[in-house]
């Protein structure tokens, strides 16, 4: 009797479980995920020489706050744990290990910097922790064969360099090219892509190639040398401060080359305005995101949503700062991937979903530029469009490069 009753209860329970199975089937969790929340990790340079990028982490946090206010992702709140890595590779290793081993996050998101991410590249792949949408434009983040747990996000620097090279070969095959680049991984990546795009023959067009260090107070001397080299085309691989100096100095010494400015510094408000809008006319750049300081987007829905979000969730943030657009866009991408993952919040599925984004439209990306990934394509944004500054706005022109 007793036994049969126990059996009966058991069988009822089994039946109930069996019945519930279809609905429950996908509720699978790895560490960091639960019915209530999804915990993920992030690091950024809140202190130290690269602290200008710290705002990206703050913007992501502000976006997470908005998502949670709107009800979270599939009913789960997002919890972001973020630490300061000071742009130092050893510190990054420590902080990422803390996130993975002590905080037990589900995945890592948008960790910043090429040397810093290189330092943890092997580790996260050995641990099989999704390492999503890292904030660097190096090429190595899209290597699913060898590093199936790491994925980039922004168009990589090499691709962008190739776009400029292609444009020069098509439109100015007799150019005499002068290049100024920052002497670090970022500058060299651009340079590498550009030279590769020019090809064996095109490389002969380069008449001068100069570098600067971030500690240099000014780059006036380099601009003077570039002018002296007779270059009539200028590829400007510099961060905002040096970009503004370069634009102004070349105007001051009346050097008027065909000027290509890397996307890193293509901000109307925080680079061209300080440099002088009149001095910036004719600058060509490759864009993929909307510049919040470019008046052409003033009535754009995506921009207005962004502005409303900035005002509500990140009022102390600088609205001229393109990094705040970057944070918003990348966080938007993440939320889309997580939505797609549904209730199956294993590390494997998160990675799988991040690698199956199909033509995702992100509000602060340029119209027509979409986020797409696949099991073999770990470069979410590969499209960029050239734009020329007309004294007021960047006018997009030509085709959308990339696929």
């Amino acid at each position: 009797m007793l036994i049969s009753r126990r059996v009966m209860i058991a069988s009822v329970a089994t039946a109930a479980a069996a019945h519930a199975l279809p609905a429950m089937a996908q509720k699978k969790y790895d560490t960091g995920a639960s019915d209530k929340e999804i915990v993920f990790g992030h690091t950024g340079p809140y202190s130290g020489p690269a602290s200008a990028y710290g705002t990206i982490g703050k913007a992501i946090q502000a976006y997470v706050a908005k998502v949670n206010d709107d009800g979270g992702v599939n009913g789960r709140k997002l919890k972001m744990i973020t630490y300061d890595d000071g742009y130092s590779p050893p510190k990054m290793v420590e902080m990422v290990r803390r996130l993975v081993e002590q905080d037990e996050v589900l995945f890592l998101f948008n960790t910043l910097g090429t040397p810093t991410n290189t330092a943890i590249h092997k580790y996260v792949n050995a641990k099989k922790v999704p390492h999503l949408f890292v904030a660097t434009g190096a090429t190595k983040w899209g290597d699913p064969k060898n590093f199936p747990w790491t994925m980039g996000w922004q168009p990589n620097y090499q691709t962008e360099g190739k776009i400029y090279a292609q444009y020069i070969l098509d439109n100015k095959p007799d150019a005499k090219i002068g290049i100024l680049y920052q002497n670090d991984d970022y500058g060299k990546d651009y340079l590498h892509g550009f030279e590769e795009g020019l090809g064996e023959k095109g490389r002969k067009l380069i008449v001068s190639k100069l570098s600067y260090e971030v500690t240099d107070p000014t780059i006036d001397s380099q601009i003077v040398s570039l002018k002296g080299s007779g270059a009539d085309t200028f590829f400007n691989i510099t961060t905002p401060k040096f970009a503004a100096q370069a634009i102004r100095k070349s105007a001051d010494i009346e050097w008027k080359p065909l000027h290509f400015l890397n996307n890193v510094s293509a901000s109307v408000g925080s680079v061209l305005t300080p440099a002088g809008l009149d001095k910036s006319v004719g600058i060509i750049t490759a864009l993929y995101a909307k510049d919040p300081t470019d008046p052409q987007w003033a009535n754009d829905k995506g921009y207005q949503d962004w502005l409303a979000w900035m005002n509500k969730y990140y009022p102390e943030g600088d609205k001229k700062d393109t990094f705040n657009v970057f944070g918003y866009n990348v966080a938007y991408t993440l939320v889309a991937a997580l939505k797609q993952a549904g209730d199956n919040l294993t590390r494997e599925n998160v990675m799988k979903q991040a690698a199956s984004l199909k033509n995702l439209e992100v509000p602060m990306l340029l119209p027509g530029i979409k986020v797409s990934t696949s099991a073999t394509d770990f470069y979410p944004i590969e499209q960029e469009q050239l734009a020329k500054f007309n004294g007021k706005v960047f006018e997009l022109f030509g085709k959308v490069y990339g696929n």
Partner: protein
Amino acid sequence: MTSNQAAAPLATPLAKPATSWVTTGIFIAVLFALPYLLPVVLPELEGIITLKANFMIFQFTLVIIYAIAILGLNIVTGYSGQISLGHGAFYAIGAYTAAVLMDKLDVPYWATVPVSGALCMVVGFLFGLPALRLTGHYLALATFALALAVPQLLKYKHIEWLTGGVQGIVILKPDAPFGIKFMNADQWLYYFCLFVACIMFWLAMNLIRGRFGRAMIAIRDHPIAAEAMGVNNAMVKSMAFGISAAYTGVAGALGAIAIAFVAPDSFTVFLSISFLVGLVIGGLASISGAIFGAIFIQFVPNIADSISKAAPWAIYGMFLIAAVYVMPTGAAGLVRRLRG
């Protein structure tokens, strides 16, 4: 930094070694037991000892490494009285030596450590011979220049084949040897570093209490008298600089092995400044001070970060100023005061 007046002390030196043999013994025993003590002290770690405890063991590994580096700086600044803002350079040279040897020549990791130390000793000595003719601010500028120049040299295009340029070198993290099963890579690395540290600290103690140590201290306190007594000041100072560089180089090699990656960005000027901070806050001319200093530079930035994401450096700066208010002779000096 102060004027060239010989009377102005660089720091208040501590008179005697802080710790007795008994306390030293207990301390070392605790360090050796640490990987097994952690789960006991923090019961919530039980059962998951592998993961959470591993991270802490990794952090303590870093503390040990920094302690060796600070000890090295202490030899030159604390005992020999020469200010150096450039020891990050030796840390970088040590780290790159280890990385290049492992990456290009497949030298086993443990063998790279003495090589790094030896190379740094030579570089430090050669740098010291001319540079130590400078004093005060001038030496500070020279050493600071070294800290600034080394990362730039490391990415110089003509040695890129060796150093990996701006990309740096990724190396393999060593596993426990002989197929030891009860120890994972982190624990093994901890013991390896601890072992090296014990040797280095023991050597330092003997060095400082010996003839050479007395010569260094004599030069620091009474340069003219020392010279008159037949001490070759220039040679002793340069040797001290070389030995100090060797310590920091050994630390750099261990650091490279622990992090399994080197790049120019790992060795900015801020690293050198951190060592100086660790040195002063730990306690000058104090061997145990190096450990306190290492704990400070390892953990206080994390605390600052946890207090404010808006401006962690502002918090860190306040910690720095507060530390010199409360402990003008460093943590080692404070401990001494509390004891007696």
